[in-house]
């Protein structure tokens, strides 16, 4: 099953910002993932801060490991959002692997 979240709905203006906005969203995602299936994040018409992406995606990686990424789809990202997702994912996967290798 595929669940969708329209990130745009959580924006103020065109930007999703604070960690406190992303945290409840991530909890929703975790519930959906627990039932199997995958999650589609729709980033159309929205920019994001690194801390928002980290709270949403980075924390999922820290909690569930890099394998969780196979079940996440990032749709309609601007170049900036895409670059931020790539940065956060690389950083948190690296951190997860280091923490679990000894």
């Amino acid at each position, binding site marked *: 099953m595929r669940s969708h979240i329209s990130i745009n709905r959580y924006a*103020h*203006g*065109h*930007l999703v*910002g*604070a*960690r*406190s*906005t992303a*945290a409840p969203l991530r909890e929703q995602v975790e519930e959906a993932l627990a039932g199997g299936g995958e999650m*589609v994040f729709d980033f159309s*018409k929205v*920019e994001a*801060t*690194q*801390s928002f992406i*980290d709270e949403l995606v*980075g*924390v999922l990686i*820290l*909690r569930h490991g*890099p394998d969780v*990424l*196979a079940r*996440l*789809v*990032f*749709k*309609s*990202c601007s*170049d*900036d959002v*895409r*670059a*931020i*997702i*790539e*940065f*956060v*994912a*690389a*950083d*948190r*996967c*690296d*951190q997860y692997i280091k*923490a679990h290798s000894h």
Partner: protein
Amino acid sequence: MPTPVHLPASISARTADTSILACNRLIERGGDALVDASLLRFADPFGMALLGATFHMVQAQGRAISVRGLHHAIAGYLHRMDVFRAVELIDSTPQLNDRRERSDALVELTRLHHRRQVDEAAYRLAVTLIGSIPGVDANAPPDEMTGYTAFDRLVEPIQYALGELLENALTHGRRQGFGDACVWVASQYYRKSGLIRLGVVDNGCGFLATLRNHPDLRRQDHLEAILTALRPRISCNRDLRFGMESVNQGVGLTTVARIAEHAGGRLTIVTGNAIHDTVGRSRALLGGAFWQGVAIGVVCRRDRLPGIRFSELLPPYTGARPQLRFE
């Protein structure tokens, strides 16, 4: 009659030492506070946020504040910035003309005390600031390619920077027994120079208290704590710990410094007895001045803001790149 505390001629990031010294005297002196403002001629958003925080703390001690000798040239301006909430002004009536004559765009001093206010406040403050710049039209049609207006391009970097600084203040600033800490924010556009200035000041625990046990902190002093906090991936809360709800990446403050830098500006950061300017100045505050908390001044050029791309602000990284599914 209490002994007056004299405000210096300028309360600003550039004169942080004397500005903070005056604030220290106001906070430390017992009884009702009398402020002599006869020398005061200039205040920037950093200075206004500092004054707002100081007045608030004095009032929270149950002490009344009166300000005397305020020059009319600055009275209306500070009044409009809402710096003098519940403060008695002696011999000084802010003139309405003073307020209207100011062509520079101001956004009045705002205090936040809940983390959940951050997103809304960062957006509202950025929109108000940019919206008050003469000649910037919030309703101009968007660019066909990107869907963004020129207004959006100005608002977003400011909203981003404010959001990160406010969230830092209301999360990290509240650690180590400072659960009641608040944050004050002011901003202004200076028409002649084309500069935007922001001031974000909290009365929390400060950088050193949060980073004291960080392995990368080489010396236990305030200056070292600022320099350490500015490095990417340094955070007091980077690891997911059992029972701890929140986690950080250590990138927000670095990004704010990069926003300022890309927009031809800089950050001035004060905490404890230290001051650091991201273009070089870095030292102990003079005269024994000490700020309990973090006080940050941001300055940047308005004309450089629209060129900022958030992807270019990220810290460099090497190592494996995980497979991601973009559609």
